[in-house]
C-alpha cells in the first residue's frame, strides 16, 4: 500500500466527473457537459494506465492493494486490488468509456449531461467491480452498476426501450439476489469475514459447495449471458442507444465471466468440476445454436447481440475445461470481444445515426457512398468472424486448441464457430455494404466525419495490434491464471 491509490482513483475519478457533469445542468450548455465528460473519461484512463505499466507480471498476488475499514460492524472492508486477470478489465473499461463519450458526442442532443454522467458513473462502478476484494463491496458495485444502464436504455433507447430496460434490470437483479444469500452464507461459514481471498481458502463440504456454486451460477449466467437465460440481451442491445450497446457488450458481459473466475471456481472448486459437464454443454449450445439464430436475424444489432452470446459461450467453455490454454484463451477472447463488439456496435451506430434503421434489408451498396467507413467496418466484421491477424482469432484459436486437448468432439463443436461466425457476420456485411446502391436513402449517405473516423480507427488499431502481437496481454495474466488453475485443481473437501 504505497504511493498513489490508483485503483481508488480509477473508481472515483469517473464517478466524481459524472456527478459534476450532472451538476452542469441543462441542455443549454450541453457542450460543458460533453467536455467535462471527455476530460474525466481521459483522466480515468490516465489513472488506469499506471496499473499496467507498474504491474509486476511475475507474481499472482494481488497488487495495488488498498484496505480500509468500511462497515466494521459486519467486518466489511473497502479492500481493492488487482491481479493479472482483473487489471486487464479495468484498463479495457476505462478505455471503452472514452470511446463511448466520443461516440455519443453529437448523437445525443437531449439531456446530454445526464447521458454523459450515467456513463461516467457506470465506468467508475465497473472499475469497482473488477477491483473489489471484499464480497459486499463487490456486490454493492455489481448491483449499483445496474442503475445507470437501466436509465441509459430507458431514456435514450429505441421504440421498445421501456420493456427492454425493465427486463434487463429484473433479470440481472434476479440473479444477483441469490448471490447475496451465498455471500451471507460464506460470511457465516468463514467465521465473520467478507474477504474474497479468505473465502478462497475456506474448506467447504460438497453439498455446501454445490449450493454456493449454483447460486453463483444463476447470478453470473444471467450476466454472461449463458444459454437458457440469455433472452434479455438481444432486447437490451437492440433498444439501447449506441453507447449503451457498446458498454453492455464490451464491459457488462465480462462481469459474469469475471465472477466465475473470482468467485465460483476458486470458492467451490469441487462443485465446479462436478458441474463442468453442464456448463460445457450449455456453452456449446450457446456457440452452435445461438450461432444459427444469429444467421437468420434481419436486424443488425440483434445479429451482433446473438453473436456476442455465441462468443461468450466460448469464454465459459474455456473456463470449464480447466487447462491454461482454455482459460487464457477465454480471457483473451473477453478482451478481444470488448474491442470487436464495441467496434461492431459503433459501426452500426454510425449507420443508424444516418438512416434511423437497423434493418439489413434497408441497406445495400453502402460502400459506394461511404468507402472509408466500409473499409473499417470490413476489418471489424473480419475480426468478429475470427480471421487470423485480428484479435478475434487469438482467443478462439486458444480455446479451440484447449478444447481439443480436453476432448476432441468438444473442440470440434467449438470450432464450428469459425464457420458460423464467418457466415453470419460476412453475410450481413455483404448485404449491407456490397452490391448496388439499394435506394435513395443509401445514396444520400455521407461518409464518416473526423470524430467518427478517430474512434473507429483507434478501435481498429487495437483489434489489429492484439491480433498480431497478443503477448502484452497474455504476459500479464499468465501468473494469475496458473495460480488459479493450481488452486482449482486442489480439492477443498
Amino acid at each position, binding site marked *: 500500500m504505497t504511493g498513489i491509490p490508483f485503483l481508488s482513483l480509477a473508481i472515483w475519478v469517473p464517478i466524481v466527473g459524472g456527478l459534476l457533469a450532472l451538476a452542469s445542468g441543462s441542455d443549454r450548455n450541453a457542450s460543458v457537459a460533453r467536455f467535462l465528460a471527455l476530460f474525466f473519461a481521459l483522466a480515468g484512463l490516465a489513472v488506469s494506465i499506471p496499473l499496467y505499466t507498474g504491474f509486476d507480471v511475475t507474481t499472482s498476488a494481488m497488487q495495488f492493494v488498498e484496505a480500509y475499514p468500511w462497515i466494521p*460492524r459486519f467486518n466489511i472492508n473497502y479492500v481493492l486490488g488487482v491481479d493479472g486477470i482483473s487489471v486487464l478489465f479495468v484498463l479495457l473499461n476505462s478505455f471503452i468509456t472514452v470511446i463511448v463519450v466520443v461516440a455519443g458526442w453529437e448523437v445525443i442532443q437531449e439531456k446530454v449531461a445526464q447521458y454523459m454522467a450515467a456513463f461516467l458513473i457506470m465506468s467508475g462502478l465497473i472499475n469497482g467491480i473488477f477491483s473489489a476484494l471484499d464480497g459486499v463491496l463487490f456486490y454493492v458495485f455489481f*448491483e449499483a452498476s445496474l442503475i445507470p444502464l437501466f436509465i441509459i436504455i*430507458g431514456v435514450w433507447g429505441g421504440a421498445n426501450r421501456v420493456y427492454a430496460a*425493465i427486463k434487463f434490470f429484473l433479470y440481472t437483479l434476479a440473479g444477483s439476489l441469490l448471490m*447475496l444469500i451465498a455471500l451471507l452464507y460464506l460470511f*457465516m461459514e468463514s467465521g465473520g469475514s467478507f474477504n474474497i481471498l479468505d473465502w478462497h481458502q475456506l474448506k467447504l463440504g460438497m453439498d455446501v459447495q454445490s449450493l454456493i456454486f449454483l447460486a453463483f451460477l444463476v447470478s453470473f449466467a444471467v450476466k454472461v449471458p449463458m444459454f437458457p437465460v440469455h433472452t434479455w440481451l438481444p432486447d437490451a442491445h437492440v433498444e439501447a442507444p449506441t453507447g449503451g450497446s457498446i458498454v453492455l457488450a464490451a464491459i457488462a458481459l465480462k462481469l459474469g465471466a469475471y465472477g466465475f473466475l473470482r468467485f465460483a471456481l476458486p470458492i467451490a472448486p469441487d462443485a465446479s468440476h462436478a458441474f463442468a459437464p453442464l456448463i460445457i454443454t450449455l456453452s456449446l449450445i450457446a456457440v452452435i445454436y445461438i450461432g444459427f439464430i444469429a444467421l437468420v436475424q434481419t436486424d443488425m444489432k440483434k445479429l451482433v447481440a446473438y453473436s456476442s452470446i455465441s462468443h461468450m459461450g466460448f469464454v465459459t467453455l474455456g473456463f470449464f475445461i480447466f487447462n491454461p490454454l482454455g482459460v487464457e484463451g477465454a480471457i483473451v477472447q473477453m478482451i478481444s470481444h470488448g474491442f470487436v463488439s464495441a467496434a461492431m456496435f459503433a459501426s452500426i451506430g454510425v449507420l443508424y445515426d444516418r438512416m434511423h434503421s437497423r434493418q439489413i434489408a434497408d441497406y445495400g451498396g453502402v460502400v459506394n457512398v461511404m468507402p472509408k467507413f466500409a473499409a473499417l467496418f470490413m476489418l471489424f466484421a473480419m475480426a468478429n468472424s475470427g480471421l487470423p491477424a485480428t484479435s478475434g482469432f487469438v482467443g478462439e484459436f486458444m480455446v479451440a486448441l484447449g478444447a481439443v486437448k480436453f476432448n476432441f468432439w468438444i473442440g470440434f463443436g467449438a470450432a464450428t464457430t469459425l464457420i458460423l461466425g464467418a457466415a453470419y457476420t460476412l453475410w450481413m456485411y455483404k448485404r449491407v455494404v456490397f452490391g448496388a446502391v439499394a435506394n435513395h436513402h443509401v445514396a444520400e449517405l455521407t461518409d464518416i466525419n473526423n470524430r467518427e473516423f478517430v474512434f473507429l480507427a483507434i478501435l481498429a488499431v487495437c483489434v489489429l495490434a492484439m491480433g498480431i502481437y497478443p503477448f502484452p496481454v497474455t504476459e500479464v495474466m499468465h501468473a494469475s491464471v496458473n495460480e488459479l488453475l493450481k488452486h482449482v485443481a486442489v480439492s477443498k473437501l
Partner: protein
Amino acid sequence: MNFVIPDFYPAAAELFVVAMSFVILLAGTFSKQPRNVAYALSQLTLIGAAAITLFTMDGQVSFTFSNMYVDDLMGDFLKLILYFAVAIALLYSRSYMHERKIETTEYYVLVIFATLGMMVMITANHFLTIYLGLELLSLASYAMVALLRDSARATEAAMKYFVLGSLASGLLLYGISMLYGAAGTLEISGVAQAIYQQAGNKTVLMFGLVFIVAGLAFKLGVVPFHMWIPDVYHGAPTSITLFIASAPKLAAFAMAMRLLVNGLFEFAEQWQSMLMVLAVLSIVLGNLAAIAQSNLKRMLGYSGISHMGFMLLGLVSGVVGGDRHFALNAYSSAMFYVVSYVLTSLASFGVLLLLSRAGFEAETLDDFKGLNKRNSWFAGVMAMVMFSMAGIPFFVGFFAKFSVLQAVVAAGYIWIAILAVVMSLIGAYYYLRVVKVMFFDEPLDATPLTAPADMRVLLSLNGIAIAGLGLVPQGLMSLCAYSLLGSL
C-alpha cells in the same frame, strides 16, 4: 401506604411536551395568526423535547412512577429519531395543509398529542402504560385522518381506521387482562419474572400472548391484520398519511421490543413462530398486492406492509440459542431497518406532497410521468427513494435489507432468506415502474412545482441522507446496536 413523590427527571421530556401542548392550544386560540404560532410552537416543542432528552440521557436504566416508566438508551435514541421524523413531517405538510384549509391549531395539537403517545409507548415499562400511550396515539390519528371532513373518502378512511383500530385495542387489552390474571402483575419485568418462575396458568398466558401479538400486528400493519393500511393511506390527506406511515412505526417497534423481548421472552419460541408466519405473509402479500396499484399512496401502503414484514424477520431471528451477542445483532438489524424505513418513507410521501398543489392531489402513477423533464433534481430524489426501498445499493435500504438478511441467515433460516429476496425482486418491479414513468415517459402536466423553499431544501437533504447513509451506514448501525445494549 406512603405517598412517594416520583422522580420526574427521567420523564422530563414527556412532561415538557404535555405542558407545551396546552400552550399551543391556548396560543392558537388567542393568537391573531394561529397557524404560524402553532407551527412555530410545535417545532419548538420538538426541539425542546430533543434538547431535554439529550440532556437527561445518561446511559443508565432508571425507573420511575412506581416502575411504570423506564428511561434507557433505546428509548432515548428512538425518541430522538421520533422528534426528528415528526419535525420533518410537519415541515413537509405545511403548505399542503394550508392549501386545503386544514392547517388549524387543532392539527398541531393532535400531532403533538400523537407524539406524546408515541413517547409514552417507547418508554413504558408497564402493560397499561403502553396501552395508554397507544390509545393516545390512536385517538389523535383517527381524528387527523378525518380532518378533511368534507371529503367522503377521508371520513370513510377515518371510520374504518377507528373501527378496526378499536378492535385491535380491544384485543390487546383482552390479552393484557389475561396476562394480569395469570401473572398477577402488569409490570413488564414482573411479568417476565412470573413466567420464569412458572407462576400462573400457562394456557391463560398463552392465550394472552396470542391476543397481544394480534394487537401488535395490527399496529405494525402486518398481514393478516393489515386491512386498514391501504384504505387509510389512500383516504387520508397525504400529509396525514405521511405522518401515519413514518413515526408510529418507531413506536410500534419499541412496543414489540418491550412487550415481546423484555416481557414475554420466556415464550420466545411461541411468538417467534407466530411472527415468522406474519412476517412471511406480509412480505409475500405486500409485494404482490403492490404490483396491482396505480395509486401511489396505496402502493406505498402495501410496500410498507412488506417492509414491516422484513423488520419482523430481523426481530424473529434474534431468539435462536439465547446467545446475547446474536440477539443484539438481530434486534439492532430490525431497529436499523425501521429507522431507515422511516427516513425513506418520509421522503417518498414528501415528494407526493411536493407535487400536490391547491386543488390537485398528486397520487397516481400518471402524476409522476415525465417528472425528469419538469424537475430533474426531485425526479432524482424520488428515484433514490425508490431504489432504496427496492434495496439497491448504494442506498440505505440496501444495508437495511442486508443487515436483516444477515441476521436471518445467521439464524439458519436460509429458505426464508431466499423467499425474502425473491419477493424483493417482485418489489423491485413496482418501484422501478415509478422510476420508469418519471424518466422514460412524457409529462402529462407541465405545471411548475410550487412548493416553498424550506420544504425543497429539506426534501433534498432527506434524499441526500438516503444516499449518504447508504455510503456510510456504520454510524447509524452502531448507534442502533449501542442503544439496545442496555435493554436486553
